[in-house]
């Protein structure tokens, strides 16, 4: 009786090598057990895909009898349902840095359900510094150039500005790059030249971006290379470069009505309101006591603008009353809002006089600006770390929602209309609180997803994987 259908070719050899093997056991070829049957078969070609001919291929899944179409269709429908964005949803985009990698996380904010969840994300080339949403499609195939779009311009520590399509998920590359990286020919030509300030692209970090809502193809950028640049999104090239600032330019904002006037603030401690059509004209200039952080026009009064500074002060200016020289600047009012850097503030686009400020002192303050000046409504600390961003939602229905984020990597949407002090300060303009909503409704991203992301982080050998909580004090 043979257990094997044939005798392996090497069996003779092994029996010679082990002559003492019991004859009874021999028939089981135990000594050959570990041997590869083909070992001595030099004549046979070994091929990993030896049986490849017996497999059948189908050009598409539709022709394959083993793939059930209905199931696939159902899967796709389910995926699409997961990604569906309703007309009552807001997208809330966060530029996130984790370790040395950076990504843009697109959240969906569903107000009626108090729900904030991650929709999709994509990687960023460097530490992100500013975001600007664009309603114009850039380099999108099959779409009219002036159709409505949903795009995002991103400024990072890299000098190039990237433009991404927010309606496409799982994308790895931007639709357009404004700068040296985007122009292939330019790049090849300039290969060995040193990176100098120039008229065609930025050579240092991009600190602020502003899209023009009237001339939708125009995007202004402010850079650490001390220039302001104007980009044409139709051609994705730089239309004009401005160098009326003598230090890093950190914030830009377009005038809502006079659509060619750009407000810019700089570390040279001045703010300029310049007409972009007249690059050589003398520009009106205002001075502040320390480095500018953010500038913004008053959305309810086109002749006024706000400036926040490194020392925590907000200045309110009349654009028609430019001083003779920056040292003679007189503000309508100034406000010592925080003791530390006033990194971000926002004026509510719907409710006049409603101001939010965020600072490196980790607090967020809400203000009511009255004809006599601003008065504080409430001060809160939402444990987001140093506050880097405070922004009101852009739509009437969600006008009281304030998004806050900072150095702890968390983001919250605070429904300020559920705060008692806000309700009394803006009485009459506050909608009724929905039934069941407690005081200070705060919506954050569910922790589940962020935890699973964290698990992917590199671990130190042994017990070193134990992480440490960041302690900022």
């Amino acid at each position, binding site marked *: 009786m043979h257990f094997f259908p044939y005798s392996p070719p090497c069996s003779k050899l092994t029996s010679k090598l082990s002559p003492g093997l019991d004859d009874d056991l021999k028939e089981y070829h135990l000594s050959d057990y570990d041997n590869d049957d083909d070992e001595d078969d030099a004549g046979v070609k070994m091929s990993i895909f030896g049986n490849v001919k017996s497999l059948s291929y189908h050009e598409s899944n539709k022709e394959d009898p083993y793939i059930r179409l209905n199931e696939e269709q159902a899967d796709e429908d389910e995926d*699409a349902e997961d990604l*569906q*964005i*309703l*007309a009552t*949803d*807001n*997208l*809330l*985009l*966060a*530029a*996130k*840095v*984790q*370790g*040395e990698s950076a990504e843009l996380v697109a959240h969906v904010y569903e107000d009626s359900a108090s729900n904030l969840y991650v*929709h999709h994300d994509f990687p960023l080339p460097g530490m992100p*510094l500013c*975001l600007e*949403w664009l*309603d114009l499609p850039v380099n999108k195939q099959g779409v009219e150039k002036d159709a409505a779009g*949903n795009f*995002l311009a991103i400024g990072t*520590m890299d000098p190039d500005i990237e433009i991404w399509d*927010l*309606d*496409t*998920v*799982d*994308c*790895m*590359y931007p639709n357009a*790059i404004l700068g040296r*990286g985007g122009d*292939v020919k330019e*790049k090849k030509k300039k290969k*060995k030249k040193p990176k100098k300030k120039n008229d065609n692209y930025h050579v240092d970090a991009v600190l602020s971006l502003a899209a023009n809502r009237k001339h939708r193809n125009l995007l202004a950028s402010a850079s650490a290379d001390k220039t302001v640049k104007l980009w044409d999104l139709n051609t994705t090239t730089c239309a004009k470069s401005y160098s009326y600032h003598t230090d890093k330019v950190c914030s830009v904002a377009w005038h809502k009505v006079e659509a060619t006037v750009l407000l810019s603030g700089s570390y040279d401690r001045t703010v300029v309101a310049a007409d972009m059509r007249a690059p050589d004209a003398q520009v009106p200039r205002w001075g502040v006591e320390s480095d500018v952080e953010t500038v913004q026009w008053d959305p309810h009064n086109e002749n006024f603008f706000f400036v926040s500074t490194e020392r925590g002060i907000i200045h309110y200016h009349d654009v028609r009353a430019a001083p003779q020289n920056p040292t003679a600047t007189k503000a309508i009012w100034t406000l010592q809002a925080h003791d530390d850097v006033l990194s971000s503030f926002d004026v509510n686009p719907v409710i006049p006089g409603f101001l939010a400020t965020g600072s490196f002192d980790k607090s967020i303050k809400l203000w009511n600006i009255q004809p006599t000046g601003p008065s504080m409504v409430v001060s809160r600390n939402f444990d987001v*770390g140093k506050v*880097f*961003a405070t*922004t009101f939602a852009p*739509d009437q*229905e969600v006008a009281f929602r304030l*998004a806050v*984020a900072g150095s*702890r*990597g*968390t983001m919250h949407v605070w429904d300020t209309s559920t705060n008692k002090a806000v309700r009394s300060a803006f009485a009459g303009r506050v909608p009724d609180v929905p039934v069941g909503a407690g005081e200070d409704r705060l919506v954050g991203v569910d922790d589940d997803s962020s935890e699973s992301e964290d698990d992917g982080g*590199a*671990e*130190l*050998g*042994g*017990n*070193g994987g*134990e*992480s*440490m909580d960041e*302690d900022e004090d």
Partner: protein
Amino acid sequence: MTIPFRLANPCSRGFQGFRFIELRPFRRTTVIDKIFNPTSKILKFTLLWYEGVFETGAATEGHGLNLSRLNIKMSMITAIQWVPRGFAAPFPTKYELTEAEFDRIAELAKLQLDDANEDLEDAKEAAKNGESSKSPPRKTESMEKDEYALLPVFAAM
């Protein structure tokens, strides 16, 4: 700023010798502490602060150089942006890689590679000419590799 934390040897699994050290205020790549540990084969151990990440560099007998990232996450959100209602497509499209798209990406990737190589060469040249100490801090990634090379732990190799 002082950050007390436990430091572990990245090279041996069973290592228990934690140490508390203090980080002094620092900027960019800074060597913070050196530890000689007689119980292991580690010759030199260096903690680096590097663009928002803590890294350890350890030179060990027979294993060459080990770099590992400490599990200290510096997570932050630097900017946020709302999108008004009604602009986002109700059903986002999945990204599809067409041939034209592939060509575009290949070109972009090639340029990035060229750039990195170029910067690396520049950095090498600068190091040769002994100019690296004179030149101001630089920002591109590949240049920072050059800064690594100047650290004592690497010099020891």
